[in-house]
Structure formats: C-alpha cells, structure tokens
C-alpha cells in the first residue's frame, strides 16, 4: 500500500512514454499516482488503466482559470501529495506557479529529467541561457511542485501496466469545483479556452524551422507531409507570428528526442538547441557556414535553404 501520492496535472492526454516515466518514478518512490486531466476525457481512457490509481478530469472549457486554480489549491492542500508534476503547457505552467506561491512550497520549472535517489528527488533542468544543466532538489518536506518539459533522458523500453491496479475515473463537476474559494489573488487574463490538442505525436522525424526558412514555409509543410514529419520551430518564428507557439522547441517549448531532426534555417542559439540536442541524428541546412547550428549537427550543408527543400520535394514526389 503506497502511503504517499504523486499527482500529475496535464491539459492533454499523456503519451505512453510520459506514462512510462511517471510509473517508473512512482514505483521507485513507492507512491500512488493520481492524474488530473484539465480536459474532457472518456471514462475508459485505456492508457491510464493499470498505471494511475485515480484519474480526475475537469472540462476546462466550462471553468475559468481562477476557478480551476482555486480547486487545485484546495485539492493539493488537503491531499498533501509528495510531488505534483505539471506537464508543460501554458495553462499548466501558470497554475503551477500560482499554486506553488500560494502554498509556499517553492517550485522547480521546466524539468527535463527526474531521479529518485536515497529517498529524495533530484530534478534536472537547463539554466544560464541553456548553457548549463543544473540538478536541483527541494530543501524541505513540503509538497514538491515541478513543471515538466519531458523526462526523456532515460528510456523505458516497454510500457507495462499493472493489471492489479484498479483505476478510478471521476469527473470534477461544477458543484465541487466552484466550492473552492481559498484563492483571493486573481489573475486578470482575457478568458479563452486553453484546451490544447496533443499536437506532438510520436513521429520519429522532426523538421525544425528557423527564421532563415520563413519564406518557404509552404514548401517545408509540403515536405513534412510527404515524409510524415512533425514541425517544430524557434522562438523568433513564434514571436514574429509565422508559426503557432504550440510548435515551439527549446527551453521555453518542447524537448524532442526524435530519430532524425532536420534543422532548416535555424541559427543554433543555445536555448533552442537544448530542445533538439537529444535527437539521434541532427541535420542542418543553413546559408551561413559559420552558423552555431553546425556545431551541434551530424552533417549539414551550407547553401540556400530553398534550393535544398525544392530538391527534396522533387525527389520525394518522384518516389510517390
């Protein structure tokens, strides 16, 4: 019987890889798993069965952020879990920050790995403009609040669920959620629906699009479709409005560990490279042969990106 609880808060459906990591941590630390999904899910979400002890879901389109925040504060305060992992999205990041501040627990953000050693958790994240990897631990015995980019450094080869573990699904309804009133300090934010789709799938190929490729986005999307690759991008592209924020890779976005990452027109700034460096093979295309990205890739070509993408599109259309 597990004495303490590990809570996972997410606003998307967790991938099998993420669930494997969570289960691994839970087994090592002898904790039970409670998954709180800020998204309407089916009561028969099979991937959670045998992994989580309980699954709570909230339809976030029906509530404001402040309401969800107040309920979560109450819930975490009462259940006093060992750790709360917030899987990184904008909504989860905000909730984690406010909850940590209100419960005075402290917070470690954007973790890329977690270890359980000698009875304590060690969290890994990047710092100093992504040039350093830092291991941090909590100083006290309070609940540990952590936001997670992804736990990708240690692979768990197979996804195994515990068939004896009975998963209880329950919906947090309006009566329960709106009864929480502990939180006075409000966040002023235009109300909008934050539910996000699971936009990053399990594809093995990523196309990482940088500012140098801003003029040939259509060609790149066409190429990505052809090879069934997922698009990722840099902060500059997001800031300039070329690609949506949900595709952001790097310190403020996702960390990927694909089989192949094709980096097109990215300069190779550290805060972005940290997001792709775990990929098995990195290929770079950039017109500037002195670009930093060439320090982090396995092979590359210094030439105009549109030439290469045009050529690749042509090659793959011939193969069809």
């Amino acid at each position, binding site marked *: 019987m597990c004495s303490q609880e590990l809570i996972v808060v997410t606003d998307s459906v967790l991938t099998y890889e993420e669930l494997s990591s969570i289960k691994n941590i839970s087994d090592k630390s002898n904790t039970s798993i409670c998954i709180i999904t800020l998204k309407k899910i089916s009561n028969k979400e099979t991937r959670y069965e045998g992994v989580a002890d309980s699954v709570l879901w909230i339809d976030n389109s029906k509530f404001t952020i402040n309401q969800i925040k107040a309920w979560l504060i109450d819930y975490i305060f009462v259940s006093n879990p060992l750790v709360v992992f917030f899987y990184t999205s904008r909504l989860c990041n*905000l909730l984690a*920050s*406010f909850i*940590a*501040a*209100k419960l*005075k*627990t*402290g*917070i*470690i*953000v*954007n973790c890329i790995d977690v270890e359980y050693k000698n009875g304590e958790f*060690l969290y890994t994240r990047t*710092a*100093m*403009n992504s*040039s*350093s*990897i*830092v*291991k*941090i*631990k*909590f*100083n*006290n015995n309070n609940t540990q609040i952590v936001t997670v980019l992804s736990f990708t450094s240690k692979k768990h080869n197979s996804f195994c669920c515990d068939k004896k573990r009975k998963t209880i699904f329950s919906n947090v309804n309006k009566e329960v959620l709106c009864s929480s009133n502990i939180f*006075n*300090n*409000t*966040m*002023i*934010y*235009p109300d909008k629906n934050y539910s996000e789709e699971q936009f990053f799938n399990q594809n093995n190929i990523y196309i990482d699009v940088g500012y140098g490729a801003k003029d040939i986005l259509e060609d790149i999307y066409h190429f990505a479709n052809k*090879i069934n690759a997922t698009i990722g991008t840099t902060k500059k592209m997001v800031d300039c409005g070329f690609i949506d924020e949900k595709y952001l890779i790097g*310190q*403020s976005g996702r960390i990927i560990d694909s089989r*192949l990452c094709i980096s097109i027109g990215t300069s190779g700034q*550290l805060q972005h*490279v940290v997001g792709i460096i775990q990929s098995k*093979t990195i*290929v770079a*295309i950039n017109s500037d*042969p002195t670009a930093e990205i*060439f*320090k*982090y*890739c*396995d*092979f*590359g*070509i*210094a*030439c105009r990106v549109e*030439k*290469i993408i045009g*050529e*690749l599109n042509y*090659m*793959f259309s011939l193969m069809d």
Partner: protein
Amino acid sequence: MKPIHNARNHQNNVQSGFSINPYDLFALKTICEIKKKEEITLSIISMGPLNSLETLTRCLHYGADKGYLISDKKLSLSDTFKTGQVLGFASKKCGMCDYYIFGNKSIDGETGQVGIVFSTIMDLPIILDITHILRVNEDGITLLNKYGEEVFAPLHSVIVMSKESTCDYLTFYNLKKTIRQPIVFSLYDINYYSDNDVRTKVVNIKDQLKTRYCVFCTKEEFIVKICNLIRS
C-alpha cells in the same frame, strides 16, 4: 541585476560584471517614456550583492526617481520564492505603489516566478505577458499583451512585461542630470527575519551541451544521405 554571462553579451556595465535584466530594461525604458508625459514617480527595487549598485545607479540615470538595493549575506543562494518574499517586504518598507512592474524572467534561471510569488504574497491581482502600455488614466492602465489583446490593469496590481530590450544605451544628458544615489537596505532594515525561506537548492551544475562533429556535404551527397535517413 544579473551577472553577465558569456553566452549573452550585453552592452552595459561590463566593468562591474552585472547587467540589467533585458526584460526589466524594457519595462524601465517603457515607464521612463511614459514618465516624460505623465506625472509619475518611478522607484526601482532590486536584490543583489553590493557590486550591483553601479547597475542600479544606471537605472536612475535612465530616469527612475528612487533606487533601493536589498543586499545581505543571508540572501545568497536565494530561490524564486525567497526573492519574491524579500521584494514583497522591501516594497512594504519603501511605501505602497499603484503598480508593481516586473520583467518576465531572469536571464540565468529563466523561471519567471518572482512576479507571481510577489503578487501572491502582496495579495494583488497580476497581469502577465504584457508587451505594451497603451494608455494611462486615473482609474488604471490599458495594456496590450503578446497575443494582441487589450487588458485593463486596475490600481494596485502587478504587471509582468514579457518583452526584452538588450540595447542599454545612455546619453550623456542622462548621465549628467542624475545626482541621486540608490539606497541600500539589509534584511533587518526591511523587517525580514525568516531564515528558512529557501525552498529549493541547486546540487550540481554541469556546463555546456555536447557539440557534435558536423560533416559538410555537397548538394548531391546531402540529398542522398537525407533520403536514406528518412527512409530507414
């Protein structure tokens, strides 16, 4: 105030080894612009070692009216929670303000938590992701966030600016007209006596990402290699 790191070169204040955080710098410049048109008082509160005093003076050169530095040996290894707490106590000591403006995040830790901790401790509403200040009225300020939405900030709220400015350039006129100096407070001065407010502790720092050896290819080689990789 942040130690200058090799990875990100800022133009300012290299002698002292400290720079103004680019997010804070943007906020400072924006407020100083408004200050030219509206009658407002701008105070800067910062936390750091005494070496960073020169950088705080620089903020006064930009047009801030008052500068306060919270400096104490007990503040070493502070995490975001403690920083937020200390700034909360310091702001109470310096007198309550109509608006508290924060930069989005620091350039070393990049956690973006201090403004949130501060707003929670002070029990003030917070407005995040602001890129522009549109209008200043008696009732409040109209802001624009990075999603292009207008947000109204009532009096007594915390505003977090999420745009950065790396161009720290002062004119001779600015340098000449400022005679004020920042005031240094210890934790005792701001009535902060707690010793165990650091919630997290860094146990290990490893430098640098591993670089790889890049093989430059010709166009033909590149196409063949990439096709093989994609199809494998």
